[in-house]
């Protein structure tokens, strides 16, 4: 059944228990992203180490559907504590999977629970939901690293 492949248990779990949610005071840059088709929003903060090489924290506040909420939670789990170089790899892997129309199996070592979003990639209208937080992260981390 397609619906279960879209809404995998992992996704619903992240949706119900969002990891890392809430805006925290320590950060160097913030990004605000909107999905213009549905009005969903996220504000996301990137907190880097002093050498600007490691992501100490990602904090965020968001409203949106299960997919966008869950993907923010997964993002937090995968990205907190990694280097920026590592983040690029993770981001690219996740992004490529989301653009693949569900054809590209992604590397779980890189994106963790993110692999559960492969079903979402088969629904073009929902891809934006699954990318909203990730785009915000890319933007905020990019600005913080300047």
């Amino acid at each position: 059944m397609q619906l279960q492949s879209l809404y995998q248990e992992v996704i619903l779990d992240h949706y119900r228990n969002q990891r890392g949610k809430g805006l925290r005071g320590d950060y160097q840059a913030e990004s605000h992203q909107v999905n213009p088709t549905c009005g969903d929003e996220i504000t996301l903060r990137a907190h880097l180490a002093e050498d600007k090489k490691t992501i100490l924290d990602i904090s965020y506040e968001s409203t949106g559907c299960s997919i966008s909420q869950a993907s923010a939670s997964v993002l937090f789990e995968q990205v907190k504590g990694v280097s920026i170089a590592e983040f690029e790899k993770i981001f690219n892997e996740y992004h490529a999977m989301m653009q693949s129309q569900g054809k590209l199996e992604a590397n779980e070592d890189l994106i963790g629970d993110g692999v559960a979003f492969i079903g979402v990639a088969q629904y073009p209208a929902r891809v934006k939901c699954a990318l909203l937080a990730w785009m915000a992260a890319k933007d905020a981390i990019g600005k913080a690293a300047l």
Partner: protein
Amino acid sequence: MTLISHKIALDVMSIRRDFPILEVKMRNNKDLVYLDSAATSQKPNSVLQAEARFYEQVNSGVHRGAHYLAELATDQYETARAKVANFVGAKPEQLVITKNATESLNLLAYAFATQNSSLLLKPGDEILVTEMEHHANLVPWQQVAEKTGAKLRWIPITPAGELDLSNISELINKKTKVISFTHMSNVLGTITPVAQIASLAKSVGAKVFLDACQSVPHMSVDFATLNVDAIVFSAHKMLGPLGVGMLVATEELLDEMPPFLTGGSMIEMVSMDKSTFAKAPKKFEAGTPNAAGIVATAAAVDYLNKIGMNNIQAHEEHLTEYLLAGLAQMPGVQVFAPNLIERGSPVSFAVAGVHPHDVGQVLDDDGIAIRVGHHCAWPLMKKLNVTATSRVSTYLYNEQSEIDAFLTSLERVRSFFGVK
């Protein structure tokens, strides 16, 4: 589930046979239940055939050629214009053909923001819209305000989603130059009190424009008695093709408005440094027109006339009543609906604890197409305190059993996401 017994005025079974898309299978081989006609309607065979026939039999340059084909094409173009104009109680000369209602609204707005236009607004002038406008009837006026220094004001809405007219005599005042508002909300189905607003507008000399995108397809609209200066609507929401919009306006207004798009067919004389322009409606129809499109729109009008606008409205009223009753029995569902006896078919609602995108996804899995999102009415969403809603909208081809299917699927939404 039969909540209301009602004699259906339309032979929906036979109507459905005219719409080939209703046979198409959705995901999981489910039947299509199309409940998104407020976004765009489906098209009967007669409309598709009219469009194809134009290309197969008469296609050529309208209003430019002198040969036989051009003569036939021009005749079909003007006959179609007359038929569509007549459908809304207007004269052919009052109908400008555009690409969609959005272009029609921009064409209107342009007249108030361009130099050398006698309609140009100045700082201090006021433009009045409402809080429940579609972006197409809001953003162009924001642009006019920005360009001219005029002030954009709006009629607020009540929590129930009706226009709040408590302050209307202040909102419509001597500074008001333009009032542009929706005839029927595409989100809530609210029908607005046109007569009252139009007469107040006339008393202060303001121009009044009606966004009739949702009304013309679903009820009988008569421009001649509406007491407004212009109405706009789109063919694609009334069984017609994409790519055709209408602006119907009084001759006085059309005369006063400057040309918008310029180029071929809209001129009187052209030299390198100067041009003069044709009379309306040609003045506003620059370039090669979508003649096949308006001919197909006329076929849509024929279809609607054959069924009868009053029958269509009665049918939708029944479906809407049935739908509202069904939703009222559903726990955790909030309906955003005006307290009006006469209302349109778009019905917006929220399911507690489930985002509209997720609502729509489960319904989609059952072959049911509804619209989720802000419906191009973002300010209205803010007013309703939501980011988005789910919307069901019906048309002449929908059956009561489709509402049942929708309600059943909505129960699945709640169980799927485990909300009570």
